[in-house]
């Protein structure tokens, strides 16, 4: 697995004077090509801050950032828009509704990055926009709709379409399914997994929902108060957590009766109901 993204010694503080607090306090992250990495932690753990720093939307105080072997941390977030690697790193936001300019139709919003960064125009642009929206599983008659006319699930798909339109090599997703109903969430998780496989796109999932991260990612980094407390393959970390915080996090998850596979797959199979 070739290393695509590497950050070392990331530190970021907010507030000044005695209120100064390190949201990110010395974090190292490595993401391989096409990998699905989970960044797990509770609110206030600094996971979203790291997401913004990786997407170069937020300046960090210390630490270096390498993308494809090239140092990109020195350039400030304000000037990131003009950098050659801008199209290579994209992000999907938690509040899908707030992620779209209320005045523009969905296809116009998806066209914006294509127009600005890949300078495509006319038919090529329209084709690229429609391809991205199709790939994200959005129905054609929704393309010209305004954001407030779409459901939560449709907006999530449109957000993903916009992010993959430029075929970035690294995609950061901040709580992609937190605002969605369970019935719609599963569809988005399948879509993300297919896109990652088909487009060989590395994805970093920032979330507090361990169950979602377990089904989607291969590697997990657990964060608490700005530090990575544990890191490793999802299976091992979730099965036998080493760090007390991870243990407490997993213990707090609502317990589902332990059963082989789904309760309903084998009609009449005897299931061991985990005593309450």
């Amino acid at each position: 697995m070739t290393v695509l993204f590497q950050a070392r010694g990331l530190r970021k503080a907010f507030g000044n004077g005695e209120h100064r607090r390190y949201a990110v306090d010395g974090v190292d992250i490595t993401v391989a090509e096409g990998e699905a990495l989970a960044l797990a932690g509770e609110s206030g753990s600094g996971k979203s801050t790291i997401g913004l720093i990786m997407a170069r939307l937020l300046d960090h105080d210390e630490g270096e950032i390498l993308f494809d072997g090239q140092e990109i941390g020195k350039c400030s977030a304000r000037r990131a828009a003009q950098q050659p690697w801008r199209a290579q790193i994209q992000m999907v936001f938690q509040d899908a509704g707030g992620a779209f300019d209320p005045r523009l139709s969905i296809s116009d919003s998806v066209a914006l990055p294509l127009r600005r960064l890949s300078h495509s125009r006319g038919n090529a642009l329209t084709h690229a926009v429609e391809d991205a929206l199709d790939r994200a599983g959005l129905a054609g008659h929704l393309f010209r709709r305004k954001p407030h006319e779409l459901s939560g699930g449709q907006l999530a798909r449109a957000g993903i379409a916009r992010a993959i339109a430029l075929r970035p090599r690294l995609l950061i997703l901040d709580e992609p399914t937190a605002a969605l109903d369970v019935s719609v969430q599963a569809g988005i998780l399948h879509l993300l997994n297919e896109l990652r496989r088909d487009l060989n796109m590395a994805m970093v999932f920032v979330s507090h929902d361990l169950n979602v991260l377990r089904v989607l990612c291969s590697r997990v980094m657990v964060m608490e108060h700005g530090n990575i407390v544990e890191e490793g393959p999802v299976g091992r970390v979730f099965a036998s957590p080493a760090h007390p915080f991870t243990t407490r996090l997993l213990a707090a998850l609502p317990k589902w009766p332990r059963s082989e596979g789904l309760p309903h797959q084998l009609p009449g199979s005897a299931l061991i109901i985990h005593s309450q």
Partner: protein
Amino acid sequence: MPVLAPLLTVRRLSLAFALPQGGRASVLDGLSLDIAPQEALALVGESGSGKSVFALALLRLLDRHAEITDGEIRIEGEDLLHASDKRMQDLRGKTLAIIFQNPASSLNPIRRIGRQIADVLLAHGERSADAARRRAVQMLARVGIQDAARRANAYPFELSGGMKQRVMIALALAASPRLLIADEATTGLDVTTQAMVMDLIHEQARANNMATLLITHDLALAAERCDRIAVIHAGQLVESAPAARLLTAARHPYTRALLTATPHAGSTLANLRAIPGQAPDTAAADLPACRYYARCDRRTELCKSLPPMQTASSNGAHVVACHHPL
């Protein structure tokens, strides 16, 4: 669970909202369910299913656009729908209490927490202000706040997030209600805080033989924390059963679909499946009799025309409303 007279009885409750742009949305359609004393019932449904409207209807806190078109609600035998406003005011807090989503913002930001709890006690029978203040400090201690006497003088903004959740629970339990409704009370909270809040509610319920109604979209949370689960879809009760039974032998297609869509400890991406389509617009004129019709893979013409009849299991514990249950 010995069969006692139900604490709360809801029969055929139907409710409609007058929409600002005209038309009426029938948000609840013939909802019937009971809660036995000290029972922990979960009402599980997706956003827009009407579960929170149901909670507000129980407390008659709905705004003037809502109208209860049919049905009956009785608490300890007393008819709530026709109770006077004064009587409802007495019942709220003393018999029925509720905690809303993001409980921290339910505290009056500029009033000391001790006084807020004392206000509830004074509103429900406590005569002397001093006694009310003393009992308020005891309540704070009971919900696990250390140094309660000093903390009672603090303002909400001086407390941590977790402590504010505890104070809200102390407020709700101050007048020792018979039924505590938690309406998405832990949605958006961290998993560890959620566990603390649910433990606290469970512990207080057992200590004061109080029934609880957990309203949530999280089926896993409901399964772990409640004796029985009722599933609601677009304002219709589709199924209710003891928790373990619902998980292992659900009979309604929607409950089944929810189970296969909810990620949990044992699930993998392969066996996770989304539910096609969306919940119907309850203001639409051509609403099918069973509102899961558009998304159901077992639907027939019958489901469109005839409202699904509720059939109960032999001991009456497992009820399902479907023409073609699994």
